[in-house]
């Protein structure tokens, strides 16, 4: 291998997703003068925040070797709990706490079914997807709940130093979740369970307990996303979040997390979510037809994972 090729591989492996995002930004910058402005940069990050936050939980789950299809429905259900709480006059802090609690508990229920009930994650969360959606529709009779106080809405509409609050939320969430994943025992167990569950169990780790908690994290992340979405639209919809699981999975795998578990990082996921956000934003700015947009996004997902695989040196 010549020096250039080796260098290219090394750089690709370490910075592949970031480089991809930068190339994408460069292309869009050449194509439209509206792309690279401070206003649009903040706009993209704000739009990405909800998918990015859902993808935090998805990254935990996928690193642990599982999958969570219920995130979109959990988002809708937590949003409805939040909205009904606000409407019933519980006060903003209590309503938020209730929504987060419901999200986490439902996630833990997912985890318990998977870890203790030995259900495949795909099946358990597929079932929960329907249960949570049904519950949200049932509680609201299918109607959106709307009209909240300016104080609550400032969760999504406020800013600090010119930065919209959803961006601050997202960064804080990533910082916290990254520390947990990279610096704590729980984080190491998540990688361990995904890499080799049997070996992790044999080395004395309470695998089932930690697995359950991983899905709790995912449910909690969905509930946090629900806070932002509800504040942003000033409405909680029982049909919110449909297909969000697919966006979150896409962000996670574009970010280099392996679907077979044991490998991945939150930094990568954030870049993956931004890539999708930038792509959608750029294609809108260019006035590209929405049919073509879907096609392009699909190609980018496949391309990103393919490139990632090519950069990874083959293991024996």
């Amino acid at each position, binding site marked *: 291998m010549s*020096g*250039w090729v080796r*260098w290219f591989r090394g*750089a690709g492996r370490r910075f592949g997703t970031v480089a991809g995002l*930068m*190339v994408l930004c*460069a*292309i869009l*910058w*050449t194509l*439209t*003068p*509206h792309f690279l*402005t401070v*206003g*649009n940069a903040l*706009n993209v990050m*704000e*739009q990405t925040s*909800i998918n990015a936050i859902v993808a935090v939980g998805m990254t935990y789950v996928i690193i642990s070797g599982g999958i969570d299809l219920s995130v979109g429905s959990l988002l809708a259900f937590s949003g409805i709990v939040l909205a009904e709480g606000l409407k019933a006059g519980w006060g903003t802090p209590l309503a938020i706490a209730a929504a987060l609690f419901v999200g986490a508990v439902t996630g833990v229920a997912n985890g318990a079914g998977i870890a203790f009930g030995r259900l495949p994650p795909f099946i358990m969360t597929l079932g929960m997807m329907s249960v949570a959606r049904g519950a949200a529709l049932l509680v609201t*009779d*299918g*109607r*959106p709940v*709307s*009209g909240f106080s300016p104080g609550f809405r400032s969760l999504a*509409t406020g800013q600090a130093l010119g930065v919209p609050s959803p961006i601050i939320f997202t960064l804080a969430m990533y910082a916290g979740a990254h520390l947990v994943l990279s610096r704590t025992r729980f984080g190491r167990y998540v990688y361990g369970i995904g890499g080799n569950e049997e070996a992790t169990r044999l080395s004395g780790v309470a695998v089932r307990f930690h697995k359950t908690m991983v899905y709790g994290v995912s449910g909690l992340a969905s509930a946090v996303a629900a806070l932002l*979405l509800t504040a*942003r*639209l*000033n*409405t909680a*919809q029982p*049909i*919110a979040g*449909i*297909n969000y699981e697919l966006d979150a999975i896409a962000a996670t795998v574009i970010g280099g997390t392996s679907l077979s578990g044991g490998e991945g990082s939150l930094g990568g996921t954030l870049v993956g979510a931004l890539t999708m956000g930038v792509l*959608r*934003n750029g294609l*809108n*700015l260019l*006035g590209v*037809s*929405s*049919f073509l*947009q*879907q096609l392009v996004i699909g190609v980018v997902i496949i391309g990103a994972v393919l490139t990632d695989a090519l950069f990874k040196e083959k293991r024996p």
Partner: protein
Amino acid sequence: MRPRRRQLVRWVIALVMCTALVACNRGGAGGSAPRIALVLKTLNSPFFNDMQRGAQAAATRLGVELVVQAAEREIDVERQMQIVENLIQSGVNAICLTPSGSKEVVPAVVKANRANIPVIIVDTRLDRAAADEAGAKIGSFTGSDNYEGGRLAAQFVVNQSKGQANVGVLEGIPGHETGDSRLRGFREGIAATPGVRVVASQPGNWERDQGFNVFQNMLQAHPEIDTVFACNDVMALGAVEAIRAAGRTGAIRVVGFDAIDDARKAMADGSMAASVAQFPEEMGRIAVENAVHAVRGEAVPPEVKVRIELVTKDNLTAR
């Protein structure tokens, strides 16, 4: 140190090449004709395709550029909001918007207001309370009188059934102003005739396959149903299929809304009885015209009601 320095040089070369590539391509901004955006609920519906056609024709005639965008799914309000935000960033001069949710898009309208971009609402009204509360201002509303359309459909059912009907209703997505108005018009239109009663009413979410499934289930639970009122033709056509699957074609009167081409064909072959025609092409045309007026600072009527009419086999004309 040498290998490391060589690596550094490679990074620098790569970076410079990328920058050069980008810088060379940097073109100037486009022409100076006003850009008008049309944000549709979806592009997968003949109704909105017609609206797009009317808007495009008006844009061509007036010499403005038309940008048409829609979310992948009609129910994805958050995505519609993102599209509006992105259009604001792209510096369009006016936005014609068919709200995916009457309350949910209010924040997007407020953002356009802040950017001084006039917003023309088409087809579905904003929720008045939500708009007032958020201080959202719209340039104009263009749409059918859906309430009156619902009453027209009710009138037809009352007349045709001679005052005796068991009606199954397929609703749109709950909370959508258009569907709610049609439903209200229909219910109030049959209220004076006690023999015409709604025995089942469920949302089919505007979609054909849901119209099929929901109506199939309705027929199971209520075999006495002899009339369907669907809040749009797409769901009505779903019901037509469900009726065919049950082998009861001709025994159940299907009344839809929109009079799209497929519904007109169904009326011609007798599988549908009537539909309330809207004129989406006209809506698109008027919306773009009003958007151009607003961009030029001219007066815009606050509300334009586009005509509606009941289409049956008798006044069916190919378009």
